[in-house]
């Protein structure tokens, strides 16, 4: 978007990732989604007088895992602070968050952006990631003229991940958001469910003349809960800001909402009515101390990260950056790939990558099922790949074998190949007889070919394949046919 323009787009993202703990960050209530309103709101969650917050250590473990995954600093001592404001779904009148000293600071996330020939590596630096509690929900639609308050979500643990203004287009913003989305699920700290609000982004967007060092005035687009909306919202916002400036108006700092129905962003509040949150350290909670031993212990339990795996895949198997990134777009896919290779042999890496991202991915998306429940699991796919590699079957027949296995007809490729007689004909005697038969039965085509029509040759190969129901080794048929016709 916007290439060739004299404007440069600058984007920074703030993401709220809901942490996969059993209970809330400062109380023992469940955080399960979908319970009856206020069924999961304890005395602490509804802020009765006299009750006190107690930090859930699991939430801290999630923050440490994230810090390790992005190569960030993990503060040996961080502080919980109160962010004070009045709102009906904020029971205490303040949100417990981290302000001056967050648990995680620095770090970065790299991901390929673009496709095909224009793939490049994007690195986004992170400013910080801090722990905080979510607020409840205000239900404006359910009660005529009144607002309902559901405090089930109040106190749900969040990790707010803030980037530097490192992205230069909506495509880069979406690429980063997708990489982050994959990472938090990869390390098991967030379920990534965007419909349920487990992963939501705010985008700070500004534009400036190309070459200008100083940042333009930004507007913050709140609560983007799908990648498509993120792209649309940023594109609209960028076009709007450029138009404003080009028509001689100033951008004023504001918070805006994206309306998916109209595809437009509109201002919610301007900087003038911004809150003074009166942050101060929460006296009910001690500073959060994290020892190097604790970090070390968590480090040992961390899985291999997508970026490490990408590097390994491209180095070890000679895969392209694009393939390596696609295979590590989720942990399930990476594990599936690695397992398939362990059966098929490392030599089949490229073939394996093509099958996973081609036939398998297409099937999964057509039938709307998850990789973990796919009828063709790694061992079965590997059995197909092996038979392609040793020329027992052609790529085309392999697709039929895949179909059969998908439907549950047989447990591996060999069983399907034998049951249906799909074995490729590579015996030179048999091919010789076949070629003679085809030449004898298609004298017209032979004439045409000899008369200079190259197309007729392909038709003859096609005849050979037809006679053998696709089982003849096409390379051998081609070779022999050419030789015999040349005589």
């Amino acid at each position, binding site marked *: 978007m916007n290439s060739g323009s004299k404007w440069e787009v600058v984007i920074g993202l703030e993401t709220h990732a809901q942490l996969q703990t059993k209970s809330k960050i400062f109380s023992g209530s469940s955080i399960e989604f979908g319970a009856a309103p206020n069924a999961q709101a304890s005395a602490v969650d509804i802020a009765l*007088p006299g009750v006190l917050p107690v930090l859930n250590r699991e939430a801290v473990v999630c923050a440490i895992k994230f810090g390790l995954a992005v190569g960030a600093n993990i503060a040996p001592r961080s502080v919980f602070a109160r962010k004070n404001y009045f709102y*009906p779904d904020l029971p205490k009148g303040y949100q417990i968050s981290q302000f001056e000293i967050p648990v995680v600071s620095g770090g970065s996330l790299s991901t390929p952006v673009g496709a095909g020939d224009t793939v490049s590596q994007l690195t986004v630096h992170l400013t910080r990631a801090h722990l905080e509690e979510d607020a409840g929900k205000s239900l404006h639609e359910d009660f005529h003229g009144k607002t309902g308050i559901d405090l089930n979500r109040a106190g749900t643990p969040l990790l707010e991940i803030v980037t530097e203004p490192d992205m230069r287009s909506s495509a880069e913003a979406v690429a980063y958001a997708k990489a982050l989305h994959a990472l938090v699920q990869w390390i098991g700290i967030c379920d990534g469910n965007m419909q349920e609000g487990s992963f939501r982004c705010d985008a700070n967007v500004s534009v400036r003349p190309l070459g200008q060092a100083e940042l333009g005035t930004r507007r913050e687009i709140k609560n983007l809960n799908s990648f498509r909306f993120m792209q649309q919202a940023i594109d609209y916002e960028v076009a709007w800001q450029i138009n404003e400036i080009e028509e001689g108006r100033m951008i004023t700092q504001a918070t805006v909402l994206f309306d998916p129905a109209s595809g437009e962003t509109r201002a919610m509040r301007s900087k003038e009515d911004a809150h003074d949150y009166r942050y101060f350290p929460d*006296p009910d909670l001690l500073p959060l101390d994290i020892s190097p031993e604790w970090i070390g212990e968590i480090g040992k339990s961390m899985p291999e990260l997508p970026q490490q795996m990408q590097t390994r895949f491209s180095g070890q198997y000679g895969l392209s950056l694009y393939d390596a990134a696609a295979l590590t777009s989720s942990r399930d896919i990476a594990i599936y790939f690695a397992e398939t290779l362990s059966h098929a042999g490392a030599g089949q890496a490229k073939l394996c990558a093509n099958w996973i991202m081609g036939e398998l991915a297409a099937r999964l998306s057509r039938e709307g099922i998850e990789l973990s429940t796919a009828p063709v699991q790694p061992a079965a796919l590997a059995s197909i790949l092996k038979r392609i590699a040793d020329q027992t079957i052609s790529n085309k027949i392999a697709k039929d074998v895949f179909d059969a296995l998908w439907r549950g007809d047989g447990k591996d490729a060999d069983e399907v190949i034998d049951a249906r007689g799909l074995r490729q004909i590579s015996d030179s005697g048999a091919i010789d007889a076949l070629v003679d038969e085809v030449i004898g039965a298609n004298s017209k085509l032979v004439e045409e070919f000899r008369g200079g029509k190259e197309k007729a040759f392909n038709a003859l190969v096609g005849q050979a394949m037809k006679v053998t129901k696709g089982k003849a080794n096409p390379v051998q048929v081609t070779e022999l046919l050419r030789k015999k016709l040349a005589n």
Partner: protein
Amino acid sequence: MARAADQRLAKGDSGILVGIPLAYKDIFCIRNWRTTCGSRMLENFVAPYDAHVVEQLDTAGAVTLGKLNMDEFAMGSSNENSYFGPVKNPWDTTRVPGGSSGGSAAVVAARLAPAALGTDTGGSIRQPAAFCGLTGLKPTYGAVSRYGIVAYASSLDQAGPMAKSAEDCALILNSIAGFDQRDSTSVDRPREDYTIDLAKPLKGLRIGLPCEFFAEGMDADVRSAIELALAEYRKLGAVTVDVDLPNSALSLAAYYVIAPAEASSNLSRFDGVRYGFRAPDYSDLNDMYSKTRAQGFGAEVKRRILMGTYVLSHGYYDAYYLKAQKIRRLIANDFRAAFEHCDVIMGPTAPTVAFPLGDKNDDPVQMYLSDIYTISTNLAGLPAMSIPCGFGKHKMPVGLQIIGPWFSESRMLGVAHQYQQTTDWHTRMPEISV
């Protein structure tokens, strides 16, 4: 509860608190009882849980007599700030009992209960104990769980006993002190027997006398009662040494930044949305908030919310809140240095005896000054007591303050107990004429 206690006694349960009636400042939540905190805001609030302190004393077999009036949200030094009306001093019903635990002090002074529970954020146990001739103890911050106690200033609040004698305080402290995982500021340390030092002789005890506590500001009648008490201690074998608390003059200012700052945030939950008072007529959300809080809170509470909101505001935070926190550290350091030269520190609890009702209502700063000697220990988190040590003007009781190092409650209680073995101030009762 009394019947259950009778059964325990009949079965030979020799728990020292079994069957002992106790009363609670109305800041402690008790399941299915109203907890008003002296405020219209919580006039009809019923908590579905017990405060940790209440739970511990129930388990020990104590019988809850009732709940006691207090300054609204524990903000006050005279118990005139209650929505439900003032408490009067049993020694002279035209005078205040002190605050904010004024009801707790009055009920024990009038011998309506042998002991009561109070809370102390800047002197709210010790000052009323002094005004009513009682023994009151504010434990080390973190010694007693704050769970279930309506918060005023979280980093300063601490619950403690108010009773006739140091021994009674020790017995109650034995039940209420100890780690509670529901309060993150509760200190995880082994349980103690606070009666262990009661019989310990005072020979060689070094009593530190901070020159700042004996400078101008203290009334002459209070001074002479304190001097006599110190003479008694010397007779018991103690020695007095001069110590310095150079930053104590700043404690009142630091307190009136930190406490209101925390209070302004702690009291934000009283918004009329989920429980408590809600103004009957309002036009929209902001109107509901402002009318509810305007009608639900009294003047002193509003004053402190405003002060606290101001000092935390953008542009003022560093000048007030951060500076106050620095002073707080300096004050703690002063005490640490002083305790290298002494075992306990003594001085007056309050600069005057109990003053007449209505005397200081128009001048909040004069009112705040009645906590001038007690506030620094809250800022430092230290344990401190007030014990009766005679009478001053108008035959009103005078309190001697004893301050000890962190977690030195046993020793302090012993120091108080030995004095109470050779004096009878703590046994004096007011002649009550209604």
